[in-house]
């Protein structure tokens, strides 16, 4: 058992021999299984799409749709932590998660994840519509089976293809209102899909040692720092023009176009700084840390700009 048991409860749980079926988990451990920080970005992108979609949705049904997206994302996080407990235990960043730390048993995390996944899809279908529920089910299955089980341990392209699962939420938010798919939500999906590699590879650069220790074939581990930095710049140079397409196609106004252009230019500046950096030790990877932090704000700004532009046009 990790030392935080002593810190949190004032009790040394190292000394305890747990009988089978007895759980030491606090409710916060189950909350941690849902990866709340990842969930916040998922919820935000889905909510922005829901607000910008044409048509009307009852506020309570809109709330149910966003709740189902949040719970579905949490379910995917719990299933991910169930399957990756062995990797998480090796990596410093994740070693204290509830399953590798021993506070939640692996089978409990699996049952928790499956129950939430089924529950979120069924409630979405019954309460909102079955198209949104189908996309939600697809994104949970994609993240769990395609990304977590299949790709993550096999290919450095894991987060590129797996990133599609994280890109679905705007489509779910949009279809919750409209019941059909159109160009703007697909562009939102493309934006998150293209944003994912620069975001995760900048993290992977300064966490490379951790990934190497866990045997996860992230791009810096397999192809080296220089190739990863080149790929980050290339994806950024594709991402920024794609963020301008909603404005170029006349789907949004100039407010969104201006914000996306400025935010995109700042993204490129940071990606170029990463490209020019030659550091191989994490402590000298300031540009990579800066890009990782900025990429989080960037996505929030882009989606908030979509909503602001929509409200202004309305």
């Amino acid at each position, binding site marked *: 058992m990790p030392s935080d048991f002593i810190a949190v409860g004032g009790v040394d749980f190292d000394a*305890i021999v747990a009988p089978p079926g007895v759980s030491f988990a606090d409710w916060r451990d189950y909350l941690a299984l849902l990866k709340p920080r990842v969930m916040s970005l998922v919820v935000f992108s889905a909510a922005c799409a829901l607000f910008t979609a044409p048509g009307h949705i009852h506020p309570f049904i809109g709330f149910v749709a966003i709740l189902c997206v949040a719970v579905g994302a949490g379910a995917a996080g719990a299933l991910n932590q169930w399957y990756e407990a062995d990797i998480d235990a090796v990596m410093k960043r994740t070693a204290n998660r509830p399953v590798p730390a021993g506070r939640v048993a692996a089978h409990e995390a699996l049952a928790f994840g499956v129950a939430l996944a089924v529950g979120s899809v069924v409630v979405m279908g019954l*309460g909102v519509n079955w198209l949104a529920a189908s996309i939600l089910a697809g994104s949970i299955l994609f993240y769990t089976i395609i990304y977590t089980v299949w790709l993550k341990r096999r290919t450095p392209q894991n987060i590129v293809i797996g990133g599609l699962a994280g890109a679905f939420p705007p489509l779910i938010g949009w279809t919750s209102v409209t019941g059909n798919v159109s160009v703007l939500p697909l562009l939102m999906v493309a934006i998150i899909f293209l944003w994912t590699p620069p975001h995760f590879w900048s993290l992977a650069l300064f966490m490379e040692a951790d990934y190497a220790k866990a045997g996860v074939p992230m791009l810096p581990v397999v192809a080296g720092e220089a190739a990863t930095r080149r790929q980050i710049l290339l994806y950024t140079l594709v991402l920024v023009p794609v963020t301008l397409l909603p404005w170029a196609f006349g789907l949004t106004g100039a407010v969104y176009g201006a914000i996306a252009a400025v935010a995109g230019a700042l993204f490129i500046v940071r990606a170029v700084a990463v490209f020019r950096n030659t550091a191989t030790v994490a402590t000298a990877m300031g540009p990579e840390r800066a890009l990782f932090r900025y990429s989080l704000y960037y996505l929030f700004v882009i989606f908030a700009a979509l909503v602001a532009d929509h409200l202004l046009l309305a």
Partner: protein
Amino acid sequence: MKVDWTPAQTAEFRRRRRSRNVALGLLLGALVLLFFGITVVRMIK
């Protein structure tokens, strides 16, 4: 089931179990309200 815990460990275990039970109770209550709300909105529509 006999377990060899100190009083402090037993107290901490009970605190955590209670927190889980309270959270589960609140969750079930929220589910009831959620289904009630969906039903009402659907009936109005």
